[in-house]
């Protein structure tokens, strides 16, 4: 039976949801192994071994792996896949997208990025052109490297597995890069990629103050995550990790509320698989209305406070 190695993404000792979607994709390919790389990650490895379907966890525990540096982690993944596995499966997060192609090149494999489905052992579907087309792709490489779109696969149960844990040694610091620092936004709100409801604001908000004055209370009322268009992020109304779209986050919540967002194809690419889309825009011909289930035409500065008030 084929073996698929899942690159486990974790932060602060917790496994990220995107990993669980990758496990589901991997389980459609064969037996699921997991790689936990990091520093002081014993507890993460134990948690990974409990994910339903995971039969073995390889742990690479070393200071060199502490900040997910691709230069140090990719050789570990490549070595394990080379000896033991047929697939590397990574979540299509910024961490997965940084590391997986480096592994693919070390293995001389052409990666299949951002898969939406597993059609067979060597065949997958994936979006191209900002999701305006879906390609079915067949790989002829003996080993395969895949990244997985989180919204396209259900999350594997975090409990129920009883995999073995095996330490991996070797590798270490490639001496090419080091971690300097991070500005990670701490938020009480749900993370965008797993939020049930998202409220997103666009350029029409006009300033950071107005963005927070109007969008935040509505999001709080709905228990929603907050997103933004590229225009809103570029203008500094919202931080970069809010960006939804082709080149930002891909989300598919049950409810997506787009406020003052025109609906450019690059934005739609990140949210058009949401279950219900609500749009508020003063231009009745805005392209966002072509994908919205419920549209309200009018001035957001009047409508949004009213909506927050009445909810």
């Amino acid at each position, binding site marked *: 039976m084929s073996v698929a190695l899942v690159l486990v993404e974790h932060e602060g000792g917790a496994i990220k949801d995107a990993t669980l979607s990758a496990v589901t994709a991997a389980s459609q390919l064969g037996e699921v192994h997991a790689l936990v790389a990091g520093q002081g990650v014993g507890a993460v490895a134990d948690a990974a071994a409990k994910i339903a379907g995971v039969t073995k966890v390889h742990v690479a525990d070393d200071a060199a792996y502490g900040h997910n540096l*691709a*230069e140090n982690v*990719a050789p570990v993944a490549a070595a394990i896949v080379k000896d033991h596995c047929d697939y590397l499966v990574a979540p299509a*997060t*910024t961490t997965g*997208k*940084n590391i997986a*192609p480096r592994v693919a*090149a*070390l293995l001389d*494999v*052409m*990666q*299949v990025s*951002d898969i939406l489905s597993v059609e067979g052992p060597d065949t997958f579907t994936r979006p*191209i*052109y*900002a999701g*305006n*087309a*879906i*390609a*079915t*792709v067949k790989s*002829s490489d003996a080993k395969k490297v895949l990244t997985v779109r989180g919204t396209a696969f259900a999350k594997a149960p975090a409990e129920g597995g009883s995999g073995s844990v095996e330490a991996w040694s070797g590798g270490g610091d*490639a001496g*090419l*890069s*080091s*971690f*300097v620092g*991070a*500005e*990670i*936004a701490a938020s009480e709100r749900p993370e965008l990629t797993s939020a049930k409801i998202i409220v997103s604001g666009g350029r029409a908000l006009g300033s950071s103050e107005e963005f927070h004055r109007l969008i935040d209370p509505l999001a709080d009322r709905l228990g929603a995550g907050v997103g933004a268009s*590229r225009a809103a*992020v*570029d203008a500094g109304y919202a931080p*970069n*990790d809010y960006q939804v779209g*082709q*080149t930002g986050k891909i989300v598919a919540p*049950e409810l997506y509320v787009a406020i003052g967002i025109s609906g450019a*194809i690059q934005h739609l690419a990140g949210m058009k698989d949401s*279950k*219900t*889309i*609500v749009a508020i825009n003063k231009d009745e011909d805005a392209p966002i*209305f*072509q*994908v*919205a*289930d*419920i*549209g*309200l035409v009018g001035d957001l500065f009047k*409508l949004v406070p*009213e*909506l927050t008030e009445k*909810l």
Partner: protein
Amino acid sequence: MKILVPVKRVLDYNVKPRVKADGTGVDLANVKMSMNPFDEIAVEEAIRLKEKGAATEIVAVSVGPAKAQETLRTALAMGADRAIHVQTDDEVEPLAVAKILKAIADEETPGLVILGKQAIDDDSNQTGQMLAALLNWGQGTFASKVEVDGSSVNVTREVDGGLETVKLSTPAIVTTDLRLNEPRYATLPNIMKAKSKPLAAKTPGDYGVDTAPRLTITNVVEPAKRSAGIKVGSVDELIAKIKETGVIA
């Protein structure tokens, strides 16, 4: 320090892609093509580093059909010093592009290679990372800030949780994100000047790279369409409709 900037010719980002009826791909006949927007950002960053005195020469590279020369001329008009065109009419996958770029990097010995983080046609987001692996160099992907400091470069990266900064020893790979800079437009005099800048014509064979694809695209379809929605006339109606979906009580 020399900077190598690979650029790709793609469907212009303002054009809505149309899937061909026979399922073989997206229709590129008679549509506007442009430089991949992330590559424009890469060219711009290289020029800014040169203007600051951190770089001495900028070499633009494109792997693609004859028309890719137009894209290289755009890079030259923006401010690149010379160009290398690796001509092929075949679809070249990121892995093979990375192999060609590695061969060029071996010849040119740049201090930095700055690439777009992804091309907006196949959205692969692979070439820079693959090139870094093949060269065994450090990689600063999805960059929103690049600071060259002697023999190292600090790259601030846009990551899912916010921003992260890594320090790479040079030579190194940088891939650009949207907020790294705003690319300049080429001025008419510079477009004229670009016509006489050197452009070397090469083929994948010159670099001994086999570009045979590893992936076969067996079918391309349009994504499922969303059925048309409704417009409501008031906030009260909106709340009632949202409640009907059951997401909120």
